[in-house]
């Protein structure tokens, strides 16, 4: 055991530098976490999604849809079959979105990915299963509803649900998007302004 600790603990003359470095890394991480409002990413509040302006047009279209009162982003876009899966999926997606956003890799027209499609489809069914399940058919033939529930995407017909059909970073550009908390704290602003002057 102590062998291992010895192995990890750097030689005396390095200890200060390493401690400072670790402190810096943790600090920077926390800073990024803060600046990017990552905490909010863990919540179900739709406002968290428009933390990134790239999600504005989806927010806007959802905000004008009949689902606004009934389903938030995560109701559709995150798996709800168990709690672990929910947060795992969120973290995975969140990481990719954040990375792409920061590296400016987002395309003009964002398209939902294969994995996301399945999640959403499952969620449509989760809420609407009553309507689309034909019990009589189930009694006859257990697979009958496969088609309605799996093979075909609901939004092949319900093309406007919930985001409408026009998709681009610029769609709904005049919409009222709630003002997300200002990301740059005043003390940083002050420092920056001082340096400039």
């Amino acid at each position: 055991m102590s062998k291992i600790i010895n192995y990890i603990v750097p030689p005396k003359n390095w200890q200060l530098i390493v401690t400072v470095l670790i402190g810096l890394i943790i600090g920077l991480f926390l800073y990024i976490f803060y600046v990017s409002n990552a905490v909010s990413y863990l919540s179900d509040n739709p406002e968290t999604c428009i933390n990134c302006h790239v999600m504005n047009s989806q927010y806007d279209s959802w905000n004008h849809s009949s689902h606004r009162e009934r389903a938030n982003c995560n109701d559709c876009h995150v798996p709800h079959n168990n709690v672990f899966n929910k947060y795992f999926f969120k973290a995975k997606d969140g990481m990719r979105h954040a990375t792409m956003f920061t590296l400016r890799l987002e395309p003009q027209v964002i398209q939902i990915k294969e994995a996301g499609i399945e999640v959403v489809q499952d969620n449509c069914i989760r809420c609407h299963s009553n309507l689309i399940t034909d019990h009589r058919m189930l009694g006859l033939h257990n697979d009958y509803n496969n088609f309605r529930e799996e093979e075909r995407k609901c939004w092949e017909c319900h093309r406007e649900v919930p985001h409408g059909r026009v998709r681009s970073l610029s769609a709904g550009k005049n919409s009222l998007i709630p003002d997300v908390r200002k990301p740059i704290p005043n003390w940083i602003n002050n420092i920056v302004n001082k340096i400039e002057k």
Partner: protein
Amino acid sequence: LASSITERRAEVTATYKQEVKIKDWEPRNEVWGKNFPTEYDSYQLNSESNFASKYNGNAMIDMLEADPRLVVLWAGYGFSKDYNQGRGHTYAIEDIRNTLRTGGPENENEGPMPSTCWTCKSPDVPRVMNEQGVKEFYTGKWARLGAEIVNPIGCADCHNNETMELQISRPALVEAFDRMGRDINDATHQEMRSLVCAQCHVEYYFDKKRPGAEGSAYLTFPWDNGMSVEKMEEYYDNKNFSDWTHKLSKAPMLKAQHPGYETYLTGIHAERGVSCADCHMPYMSEGGKKYTDHHIQSPLNNIENSCMVCHKEKTAQLLKDVYDRQDKVIENRDKLEELIVRAHVEAKTAWDLGASDNQMEDILMDIRHAQWRWDYAAASHGASFHSPVEISRVISSGITVAQEARIKLARLLINLGYEGEVPYPDITTKAKAQEFIGLPMDKLETEKDQFLKTLAPKWDAEAKDRESKMPIIYNN
């Protein structure tokens, strides 16, 4: 949650008992209806016959009266006697009995039509095919099966009786796929929602030379080279096949019969994976449950449930979209129709002036090809909406060929001593047109009346007797 769903499903299986057991080959729609009352109720609405859209609908419309030029185009062929706007599936039996095309048979060996005509009219067909054999089904006169085939198009045509899955009940479609090197078993569910229709809403001909089935009128879809107007034409040309010889022009004619599926495939909706059922059998809801509308009709009578699920435009706008396309396509289809009428009449004039077979050969082939194109565009009833760009293409090429025929005729006629334009016949009414081509309408109508009063009721009685012996098994 997942387990909760499974549980609920099991529950459901238990509660929803099937009222009756549907046996193999059950042709009676009302028997299926006992298990599926919602679908059956909507199916019954197919008997409505009061909706007329601009060009289609389910109202009874005498198409020869509406457009007497058709009489001339089909001179020498059954369609010049009688042709009506198609109606709902529940009319299939009534309409085929009533049409003058099937004549007035007095017994099972009489009449102008083969038994094959029944193929697309009833769920009795798979039953009888199973009993008699396919080749045998296609053999003999239409009247031969009159007592066997009495239930209008229905459940057994499209559904498996045990699982209710969509299934193909007609051999012609399977055989055609086979010859194209394709297997319907590979079709996706969504494709099946169109393929059940493709059993009937397709171009066909009666092959009288099929090896192993000589003597029968074997129902065949001419898709071996492809489904485009050119590829099917090539198929028929290669086989030297013609449906009839035109009474005026003596051209070896082809009749295009409702190539609905073939033309639908070339349109944007098919390209985007929209099926026939999506528009003609949209989901409806009753008591918070979705079911498939079995009132199969013009979607223009139900734009809200069909188009508007996918398109957010207003009803009036969508109606306008359909009519705009139909108007633009049909404007030139009408022109082509007139040009072909002229070509037939000019060709007749040439024969009358002593033209030789040799001089006429090319001209007659042009007429054949032009009318085939016209009919492909006209008989595929929904196609000026299903695929307006392809249908326009077909019509343009038809006009080119029709006019080529007329250029050749113009040269020939002058050489035969005819000066100027051949006058357009007076065919302003159906009666005048039928007289022009020399049809004995009174006789045809009398024979039909006779048939409907004597033979048809016998068929019904015989069928009633047979069906009374087919028990309905109730699940207790």
